[in-house]
């Protein structure tokens, strides 16, 4: 897939898909926004106290919002990238069976378009942070790297799920269920400190825990991220992507036959 075609797919995905609705592309932003609102309203009371320990005292009432939104935006991006890549071959079956298109670069348009949605949401978030006099830090330069590591993981995992879902349709539903569990198993709406000691090692195995933590360390605390954790996620993502490509090359003929 060449660059103009990729960009065209992204444009279609972001804008043309909503051509018939009055609010258009705004809808892609409204869903995350409503999520943020709900979680802020519901959890700020419960969680607000615990966050005082995280050097966010000066943010006062906003501390939970900042904590939540930073984690939630990244999660929404990760989970919808994963879920949509899982369905990429079924969704584009009409294309794959008629035009020569690479199975491995096809998911890129989803990654790019979800990234753009994330960047727009982050743009709003940063404006919000500036409005509440948030402390700016040069460690923010880590953010793109952390985000790319996370998207690499989504690509690798998504590619494998997409290939499997051609053969087993249930994978699509399974991924959606797993995403629900995964969300609540990751400290996004709650703080890691509420996890009982004996469970905490289990949480350390969750790659998204590491990316979310790295994100908050740099964004909120202005520290450099834990490179060991981030490196592990990067390795994980690379390995999954490689595995996906090997699996895909092995099964490409069957995938094209089945679609």
């Amino acid at each position: 897939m060449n660059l103009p075609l990729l960009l065209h797919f992204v444009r279609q995905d972001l804008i043309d898909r909503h051509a018939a609705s009055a609010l258009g592309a705004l809808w892609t932003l409204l869903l995350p926004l409503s999520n943020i609102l709900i979680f802020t309203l519901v959890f700020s009371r419960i969680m607000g106290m615990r966050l005082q320990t995280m050097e966010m005292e000066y943010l006062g009432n906003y501390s939970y919002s900042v904590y939540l939104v930073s984690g939630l935006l990244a999660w929404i991006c990760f989970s919808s990238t994963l879920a949509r890549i899982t369905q990429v071959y079924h969704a584009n079956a009409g294309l794959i069976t008629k035009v020569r298109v690479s199975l491995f670069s096809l998911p890129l348009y989803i990654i790019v378009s979800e990234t753009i949605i994330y960047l727009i949401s982050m743009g709003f978030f940063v404006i919000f942070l500036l409005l509440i006099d948030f402390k700016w830090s040069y460690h923010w330069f880590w953010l793109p790297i952390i985000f790319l590591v996370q998207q690499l993981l989504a690509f690798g995992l998504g590619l494998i799920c997409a290939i499997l879902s051609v053969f087993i349709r249930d994978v699509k539903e399974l991924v959606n269920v797993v995403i629900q569990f995964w969300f609540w198993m990751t400290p996004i709406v709650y703080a890691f400190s509420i996890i009982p000691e004996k469970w905490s090692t289990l949480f350390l195995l969750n790659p998204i825990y590491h990316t979310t933590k790295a994100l908050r360390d740099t964004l909120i605390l202005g520290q450099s991220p834990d490179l060991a954790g981030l490196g592990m996620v990067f390795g994980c993502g690379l390995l999954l992507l490689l595995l996906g490509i090997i699996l895909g090359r092995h099964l490409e003929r069957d995938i094209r036959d089945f679609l």
Partner: protein
Amino acid sequence: MIDVNGLEKVFKLYHRPADRLREIVFRRPYHTPFHALKNISLQVGRGETLGIIGRNGAGKSTLMKILNGVLLPDSGTVVTNGRVTGLLELGTGFDYNMSGVQNILTNGLLLGMTEQEIAERENDIIEFTELGDFINEPLRTYSSGMVMRLAFAIAIHADPETFLIDEALSVGDGRFQQKCMRRIREFRQRGGAIIFVSHDLNAVKMICDRVLVLEEGAVVAQGEPEVAVNYYNRILAGEQEDAALLGNVGSGYGSYEARVIAAKASGENSAGDILSSGENLLLRVTVEADVAVADLTLGLMIRDRFGQDIFGTNTHFMDYPISLNAKEKRDINFCMPMILAPGKYTITLALHEGADHTDACYHWWDNAVQFEVSGIRGYSFNGVCNLNPSIQ
């Protein structure tokens, strides 16, 4: 341009797609193989048009999909030079909520054009579609013919080196079809190669240089369009003969329960088999039945020297039922004004049941009779036939 060698394709038929994974895990087969293409080799050079004909399920579409790169073969090689554009299904990726202009961009990119090329050719494309102001309306407001016109216009302007056309020429009205054909001929003159799949045997004969007949995944005949088309007709009639016999059709084939034992064409006035245009042609066909046949149809097809179908009819169409007792012989006499242009013609005869020969074919005799039209009675004319106009 296109060089295909020893292409094999086996579809593995599984009860469920998941069985493919079980197969990998347990290392034993869970499928029934279906041999879709067997040892296919073909070459198409610059400016050449190869036709592919065959019954439904013979493997035509599978072959086209492999050439287009959307399916992968099991073995064999496909070498293509330059851009190959498939007109396998017109309008791939069309979004019916978007306008015609926007869809030109999408479809063009999918066909492998660059944005610059699309911008340059956009006006030509729009002009070719003859859609006028509709081009700015969403596609859902189009008639299906308009969508097809748009799709064809984009495809023909994609300017590929090789064109794969699969039943795509039944686009729009007759005039638009002619325009498409003209474009295709221009494309060929510029050195483009075409692979053309169709059930429209007349179109195949008209535009193809060579024709390949596929049957059950294998090439059973290959050669001159007329010869290959006749061979294909024979397959349709349910009898397959060795490809080597092609061209030497002899006295035909069929079940011979009823057969044509003699046929003679002559001019009403000339008495010989050379007549002038405008004269009546008398065609006497003698048929005989071995067993009693109730619903017998005698059909004829006049073809010109290019093998193009000029005119055909049968006694079923003409409401002239024939029923023969066992061992009965009968003459059937046709008389028709031969208002054709001068040239040599052949008549193919067929005896079958019902409206066409696909149900029960008793006797099919290619080129049973020849006659020649020489000279014109009345005013001279050009073209295939004389419509006898008058000026008022």
